[in-house]
């Protein structure tokens, strides 16, 4: 059963691709408000650790690969200063991607977390892709395999952000850069339940787009949560209405002298529940459904604003869509990396 209370974000990427670096940089950037959104670590020691790492990254020193087993971090996403929702972030050692289930429990739990994820961030080292590094390409195959395996018969909407790390080491985005990802992108584009995007990121002295992958990864989950709550409210209200109208019918049947006779007959001769009591039962059922609708409404209202704001903010993120060519993707990647003017300028220079 899908957990509606907390969203789950899982990151996928091999050792050295920059997962921990990204995590700390993203946290540091979103400590301050960006377009109304900010992050708060639930555990204060996590807050201190990530802030320290971010400081080091900004000064040019990058964290070593994660050696311990996978970790989960709990955050609040805040919108305009208010806590909008909580989510868990699952940080796996990159090596877990290539471990057999018999060798490590991480391989098994990675798959199980992927099955329940609301948002997945796939890390691709842009520099390794640009030089066609064999291992990097083979990792994409492994990631596609893990995704195919974990997302079979998916029953909800999820986000899948393909994040290009270390884009500062690459001068231009050429269409052939995306060749190894084309198969995965085609699969995502054809799936209405998976909302995909390509996001170039750089972490270091100059941070580029670090807030986008996380916000995008949360977007489909938040939207799904909002629409689930909305349909739950509608269904509780509908039930309340049905119960009320049933109660009304029973009340009519039990009113007046005729009603009194009918009730007496039902209760004392048939041995069944009289209409007047049935009406009371249905009224209380209706009341219970209204209360449930109210509860859902309480959860729904604070989410609508952030969900709409996320949609607006992420509008220009390069989406994975069918019929889009690799050339169009790379143009959009350049736009979001350098801005339109920057793209034209970098093309002139190169």
């Amino acid at each position, binding site marked *: 059963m899908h957990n509606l209370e907390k969203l789950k974000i899982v990151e996928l990427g091999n050792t050295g691709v920059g997962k921990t670096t990204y995590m700390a940089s993203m946290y540091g950037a979103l400590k301050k408000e960006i377009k109304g959104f900010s992050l708060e670590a639930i555990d204060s020691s996590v807050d201190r650790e990530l802030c320290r790492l971010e400081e080091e990254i900004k000064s040019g020193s990058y964290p070593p690969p994660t050696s311990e087993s996978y970790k989960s971090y709990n955050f609040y996403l805040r919108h305009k200063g208010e806590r909008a929702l909580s989510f868990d972030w699952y940080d796996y050692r990159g090596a877990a991607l*290539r471990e*057999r*289930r*018999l060798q490590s429990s991480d*391989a098994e739990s990675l*798959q199980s977390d992927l099955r329940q994820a609301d948002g997945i961030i796939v890390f691709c080292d842009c520099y390794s892709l640009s030089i066609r590094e*064999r291992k990097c390409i*083979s990792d*994409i*195959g*492994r990631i*596609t*395999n*893990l*995704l*195919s*395996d974990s*997302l*079979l*018969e*998916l029953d909800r909407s999820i986000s899948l952000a393909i994040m290009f790390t270390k884009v500062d080491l690459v001068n231009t985005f050429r269409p052939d850069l995306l060749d*190894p990802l*084309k*198969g*995965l992108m*085609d*699969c*995502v*584009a*054809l*799936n209405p*339940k*998976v909302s995909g995007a390509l996001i170039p990121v750089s972490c270091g002295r100059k941070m580029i787009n670090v807030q986008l992958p996380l916000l995008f990864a949360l977007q489909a989950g938040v939207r799904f949560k909002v629409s689930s709550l909305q349909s739950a409210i509608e269904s509780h209200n509908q039930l309340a209405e049905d119960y009320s109208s049933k109660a009304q019918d029973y009340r009519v049947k039990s009113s007046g002298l005729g009603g009194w006779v009918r009730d007496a007959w039902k209760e004392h001769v048939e041995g069944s529940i009289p209409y007047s009591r049935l009406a009371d039962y249905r009224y209380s059922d209706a009341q219970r459904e209204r209360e449930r609708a109210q509860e859902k409404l309480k959860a729904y209202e604070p989410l609508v604003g952030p969900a709409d704001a996320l949609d607006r903010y992420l509008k220009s993120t390069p989406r994975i869509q069918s019929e889009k060519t690799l050339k169009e993707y790379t143009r959009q990647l350049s736009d979001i990396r350098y801005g339109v003017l920057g793209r034209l300028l970098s093309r002139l220079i190169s």
Partner: protein
Amino acid sequence: MTKKIKITMLGASQTGKTCYMLAMYSIMSFGVNGFSLSTTDPDDHLDLTEQWENIVSTEGKERWPPPTKEETNRTYSFNFNYALTTRLMEFDWFDYRGAALTEKGSTGSEDVPMLRSRIKDSSCLFLCIPGTVFADGISPINAVKVTAMRNLIQQDATEGKRLPIVILITKFDECKHLKREEIVDAIKINLFADLFIEGAGWPVMICPVSLGNDLKDDMDHGLIEPTGVHLPLIFAIQTSYMNMLTLKQSEEESAQSILEERKRAVTELEGRNWFVKLFDGQEKIKDANSSVKSGEKDAAKIERQRKEIEKKAELLGRELRPKDKEDKEDKEDKVYIFFDGCEI
């Protein structure tokens, strides 16, 4: 709604069966036009990609996997998926040692009878013929190997069933200098004439595959760039869907005729005179009506399933059709599909 099928690949020793499977899996695990392949056991993915990585990144004789031996015969289980989340088919792929093909069942090897029984249960057969067969001319030795496959298909294994057959011309780089039509004719006329007889009902695909065009000149160092390796699998899955469709259509027809019969029964019951109906009617009409309702429900369910199968078969069929004019010409991954001896 998916079912599990079995695919068996036949071919003499060293015809590239294992390499083909590795290439096909590797290419398809990245996804091709929305279709992708995953192993049902994630650890198998690692085994297969490690072997493929070795072929791609190693140079010298050791890049090639050793010939499959009896003790290394393996069955891999795969999911054939569409758009990541829809499983179109689950299938088992049997990787066996090629020498089993020419051995008789009584030689003591356990895998020979196993192979024969496996063929009986298969939904599609892949026959591997290396390009060298065409490049060197069809020698008596090559003819014996092909005859063994032909016999297995026709008498021993399939007992008159018309299994979809994929004739894979492996190591196509070896015979690239020949005209494609000459090769296709050699298969149709000299090697597997029975499969192309009009009215015999065999669905056949002829598919040239190669792991790389440079391999002819330098097998141990040439660049690995597989072509056309995913199409045979699409054909195998699509023909399975076509079979499922035929079965579902006949199921639908019988559900419809049952429904018609039930409706007629209601009309008959309602048409009786009022006196009979008064004493022996209302209950029967009620029962007959509810049986019509359940028949309608069954028919609607079968219709939904038929439409779903049709949709998926169409999806797969689209992949096999040439996408543009260029595809129809002498493109590297051009395939030939025949049914009943006619090219379609």
